[in-house]
């Protein structure tokens, strides 16, 4: 097996990993700061894909249709996220985890039906811009040019989040809230606004990821369920609430999957779960998480 083939596999694994990172980062952020396990995260991701379809459909006569549809879809999903936080999520911060899970799982079902009512049961197809329909060759290895865009967005989101959390005042407040919301509150900082902001940010990233997923294949009902489990695996392996952890574990999961397909195609998905199980046994707080929070 020559080196270029391994390189091609690694690249495809990276693009898969980046797609997972875009979904898992918001999930991890929301859990890390707010201690809410948002089961509906992938469903909001799917709403992003459908919204992307709608905006693309309205703009399809223009060359920039997809490029404008993606941010518009992400913003609309963020708006939905804001409504959900204010109306529902806000009421369960103090409740037990099972109750939170019940609420977010109910959201999966409700949003799923709302999608069905809004967009119907037909699969939706977004045509890719012509410039992205041909492969790009890196060192003689073909790669789907759209995934170069996906990888770029993945890293951009990572850097932007890192900068926000490490370098800005709001980021500092958010990180402080992770450790002690009482202390932050005592300093006169309104916790509910911080929480709403974090939730909306997390959902915005989910919407962005969904919108980016749109042109990859077709947009269909039930897509979220195939993805949510893998996103949870990523977050568990990386450590809940850890941004670098989510990044590293996304790449690990993407690459493990890609190389498993090459050498052991039947067991690719199983391998991801075995990996997750091992992490849960050996290091329950994940590779980059801190045991304190458990």
């Amino acid at each position, binding site marked *: 097996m020559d080196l270029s*083939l391994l390189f091609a596999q690694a690249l*495809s*694994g990276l693009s898969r990993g980046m797609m997972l990172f875009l979904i898992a980062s918001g999930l991890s952020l929301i859990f890390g700061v707010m201690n809410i396990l948002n089961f509906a995260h992938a469903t909001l991701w799917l709403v992003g894909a459908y919204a992307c379809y709608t905006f693309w459909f309205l703009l399809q006569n223009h060359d920039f249709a997809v490029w404008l549809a993606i941010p518009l879809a992400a913003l609309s999903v963020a708006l939905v996220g804001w409504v959900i936080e204010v109306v529902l999520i806000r009421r369960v911060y103090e409740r037990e985890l099972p109750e939170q899970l019940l609420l977010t799982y109910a959201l999966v079902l409700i949003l799923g039906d709302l999608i069905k009512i809004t967009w119907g049961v037909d699969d939706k197809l977004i045509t890719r811009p012509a410039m992205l*329909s041909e492969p790009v060759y890196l060192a003689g290895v073909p790669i*789907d040019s759209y995934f170069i865009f996906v990888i770029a967005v993945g890293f951009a989101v990572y850097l932007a989040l890192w900068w926000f959390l490490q370098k800005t005042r709001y980021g500092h407040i958010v990180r402080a809230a992770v450790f002690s919301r009482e202390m932050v509150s005592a300093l006169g900082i309104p916790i509910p606004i911080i929480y709403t902001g974090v939730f909306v940010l997390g959902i915005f990233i989910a919407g962005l990821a969904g919108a980016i997923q749109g042109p*990859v*294949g077709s947009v269909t009902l039930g897509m979220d369920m195939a*993805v949510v489990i893998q996103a949870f695996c990523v977050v568990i392996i990386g450590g809940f609430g850890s941004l670098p952890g989510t990044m590293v574990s996304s790449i690990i999961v993407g690459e493990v999957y890609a190389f498993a*397909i090459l050498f052991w195609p*039947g067991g690719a998905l199983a391998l991801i779960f075995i990996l997750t199980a091992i992490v849960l046994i050996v290091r329950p707080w994940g590779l980059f998480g801190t045991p304190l929070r458990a």
Partner: protein
Amino acid sequence: MRRKSLLCIVAALAVCLLLASGGAGQARAAEPYKLGVALAITGTGALYCKDGVDAIKLAVDEINAKGGFLGKHPIEVFIRDTHTKPDAAVRATRDLILRDKARTVLGTYSSACAVAIKPVCQEYKVLHIPAISNSEGITLTNFSPYTYQVVPNSYMQAKAVVLGVAALAKKKGWKTYATIASDYEWGRSTQQNTVALLKELAPELKLVKEFWPPLGETQFTSYITAIMAQKPDFVIGSIASKDNVAWMKQAKAYGFFKKIPYPGSLISVTELILQAKSLDRGLVGLCRAPFFAHLDQPMMANFVKAFKKKYNRYPSDWAVMEYDAVYALKQGIDKANSIDTEKVKAALKGATIDTTRGKLSFRNIDNQLGCSSYLGVVADDPKYPFPIYHDLVEVKGPDSWRPEKEIIAARAAEKKK
């Protein structure tokens, strides 16, 4: 006074009756045959249907030049738009039957439309000849004795891919292949059947690797690169509908189909003509009725010549099949020596007819015409301004259609429901 007016009315009525019966009698002497066409004039199917409509008009002109059906029933064509939507197709068909008094409905473009109009035609006892849509469901279950299918159906086409690949492998010296199939019941069983059949037909072929993406997979990139790493001579895919869209879209973006033959995609003559420049040479395509496969048949040669003369272009698969549909009807009428629908229906049962694709027979159990499927390698040809199929493999209808006992079983299962 009163009596007089009454007499007048009676007299007027009598005259009316006389006129009416006389008129009807006259009409019966040269009663035109009303042929309904339910095709997609607008919508996604318009591209294929335009050719179909043109071919129907050509066939009708030819027959009318000789006085019409049986030499005395000139054909009147009524065309209604299905908009490629089942509900619109049903409306169009009802209008064709009730307003236009069509005795036969040719159509439709989409299988969903064909399945929807089938019971309507049956209800009004009108013949239905689909000549573009080909879902097996049209003839397999909910069987209507009024429906005659002149297109190789979806089962025949799928089976033909496997049979054709085995033949092509011998021609091209292919040795290795890989499979990619959705990891669930349908994907597993289709893949198993394909592999078993290939083993039987071409034992020298080696299956190098099987790929099983889970159902609902959205990103196939790693599969695509992994398959390319295996460098198989060809790849057989059995991926379910929406996953297939993602797979095809991504594989195309990887340049996959340029590198590895992936037999089974429908590339009809329409695509060969329209994408003459961009279509990758070397693709292994599947089609339903390519005119160039049967130029040795006088009927086909004449049809192509007449079509070219009238429309200044080559006929697509869809034109060929709609043309055959009109002539199938003509031969049914000739055999019945009547335009009475029940008699024509009975005459067509199990009939062997002349078509542009050769002498073909309808099968009794499902009224499916034993027409061939065609597999070949897209290649340039000096005779045409567009690529055609080389290494053409014709898989005969009777070699590819579903065994009768399976049809009986499917209908029994349907009854139980």
